């Protein structure tokens, strides 16, 4: 039984282990390395904030906060103002949300409450694939398919009925705030559906059963009981989608027109923070130019962090209630 004595010997020898043997067991090292990685992620986040802040200083020192209120954007004259971009960012995102939210919430209700499970799973799978489509592809479709379609089929009726409104004034050349808003809505709808659906599914079965047992129809149960219960979470999903719309770059820059002007009309071209950075950063020269772009990136960063932070709290609140 040579093997037995070998085993007994090896195992027996290990009974008294020194410092290095235990070190090789790996517990301390493993703990330290994984902890180090976790901490370094925190450091990366701090680094992001620092770099954005530090590199915006030139602009901040020159213009101060009035940078955010000024519409003077003239790189040749070294004059910078963020207002047109903030305006465009907000308008396109807002427009996108107005279209996407009703559509998305309605679809999520269908998928979570009304549709049979098999159908719901297949459709959800397809919708989540939509969320995986890269932004530049949406931009591609935007330029070549959507914009001409809007120009041909949407704007003429819109103008004929609502042309008197300031938001539909002026000639439509295609690349505009309207086009960007519509593209954004398409991009953002899958997120709203995905998160809202999960929030709705998390509403306890007991709540639904209580209503149904009293004779309520499926829709009544959904509208009166499930939706209110899930409302915080759905708001969370809306906020998440908003943050995404604000930061969306490629699809917007390809259809928005890239013109730094503020106009009441949705049919006119515009610009957004992400779009101007995408367009002009690579060629920007001069400290003030670059730091102005970075300052706007900092603003965008702050905005999305705050909105995301609130959104996450909303979603967590709903999850806690469900458990």
């Amino acid at each position, binding site marked *: 039984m040579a093997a037995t004595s070998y085993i007994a010997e090896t195992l027996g020898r290990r009974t008294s282990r020194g410092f290095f043997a235990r070190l090789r067991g*790996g*517990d301390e090292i*493993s703990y330290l*390395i*994984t*902890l180090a*990685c*976790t901490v*370094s*992620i*925190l450091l990366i*986040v701090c*680094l*992001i904030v620092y*770099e*954005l802040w*530090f*590199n915006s200083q030139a602009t901040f020192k020159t213009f101060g906060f009035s940078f955010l209120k000024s519409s003077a954007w003239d790189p040749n004259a070294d004059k910078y103002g963020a207002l047109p971009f903030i305006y465009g960012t907000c308008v396109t995102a807002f427009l996108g949300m107005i279209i996407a939210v009703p*559509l*998305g919430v*309605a*679809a999520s209700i*269908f998928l979570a409450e*009304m549709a049979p499970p098999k159908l719901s799973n297949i*459709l959800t799978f*397809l*919708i989540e*694939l*939509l969320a*995986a*489509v*890269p*932004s*530049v*592809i949406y*931009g591609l*479709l935007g*330029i*070549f*398919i959507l914009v001409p379609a809007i120009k041909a089929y949407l704007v003429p009726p819109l103008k004929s009925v609502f042309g008197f409104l300031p938001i539909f004034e002026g000639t439509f050349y295609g690349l505009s705030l309207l086009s960007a808003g519509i593209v954004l809505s398409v991009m953002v709808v899958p997120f709203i*559906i995905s998160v809202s659906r999960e929030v709705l599914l998390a509403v306890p079965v007991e709540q639904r059963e209580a209503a149904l047992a009293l*004779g309520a*129809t499926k*829709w*009544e149960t959904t509208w009166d009981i499930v939706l209110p219960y899930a409302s915080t979470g759905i708001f969370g999903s809306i906020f*998440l989608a908003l943050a*995404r719309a604000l*930061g969306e770059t*490629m699809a917007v820059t*390809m259809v928005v027109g890239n013109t730094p002007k503020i106009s009441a009309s949705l049919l006119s071209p515009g610009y957004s923070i*992400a779009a101007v950075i*995408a367009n002009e*950063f690579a060629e920007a020269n001069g400290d003030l130019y670059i730091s102005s772009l*970075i300052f706007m*990136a900092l603003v*965008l*960063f702050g905005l*999305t962090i705050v909105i*995301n932070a609130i959104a*996450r709290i909303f979603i967590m609140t709903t999850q806690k209630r469900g458990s």
Partner: protein
Amino acid sequence: MMMEISTSRRFINGFMLTLSGICTVLVVSVLFFILGYLLIHGATSLNWDFFTKLPKPAGETGGGMANAIVGSGKVLLLATVIGVPIGFLAGVFLAEYSGKTFAFAIRYVVDLLNGVPSIVIGIVAYALVVRPMHHFSALAGGTALGIMMIPIAVRTTEEFLRSVPVNIREGAMALGATKATTIFTVVIPAAISGLTSGMMLNLARVAGETAPLLFTALGNQYWSKGYLAPIATLPVMIYNYAISPEEDLHKQAWAAGFVLLTLVLVINVSARLIIARGPSAQRR
């Protein structure tokens, strides 16, 4: 006395069902629309040149995106090397070692990082890599995408490690394995299908990212040597060609879009299938 549900209530119920169903169908049809158009415009423009030739100089027709395909591969490789190990090990910490409050805080911060617009990350990579080096590079692009890969790596790792039952861990420790040995020889192998598919989804997501590459990797008409030079990538090429005035380049943009989308969707679908069939699904 039987009370029948009123006609109006029944009508509303049916109406709302239909309405919400229509919304859903509308959304889903967008997907088929996208795929359809890309198929028509892109697949037809696809030819062997696309995969083998370099772009032609301005004004000339023809050429391909061979350098962009390789370039994307290189940048994604860098991104994986930079972002995945750190995210993975942090996920191990959260799942295996961390206390509850700390884990919650980290998870929250990581989720916030995930929500940062990709273009902002691009700027940070610019400040960290391009500025000191005084030129654009694949390394800078890889850094930007790598940072973007971290949050999903952390969350996926944590989720799938936590799903491994306590039973199995205790079985290993009862044989005299240390906690670290248990984690790396039993827990991680048990979660491997989930971890792999999470990695794939992560990769698919950053493979399509364009914005951060615009001023980190920049672009290149020719082959790039190594990782310290500006480099062409597929998404950036699509963007550049799409906004150019030339019809021929538009065609190539469609072809590239088709290739990119196919790649992304194939990885996505495979990853989800792995999860659906993996051990964690069987455990349920």
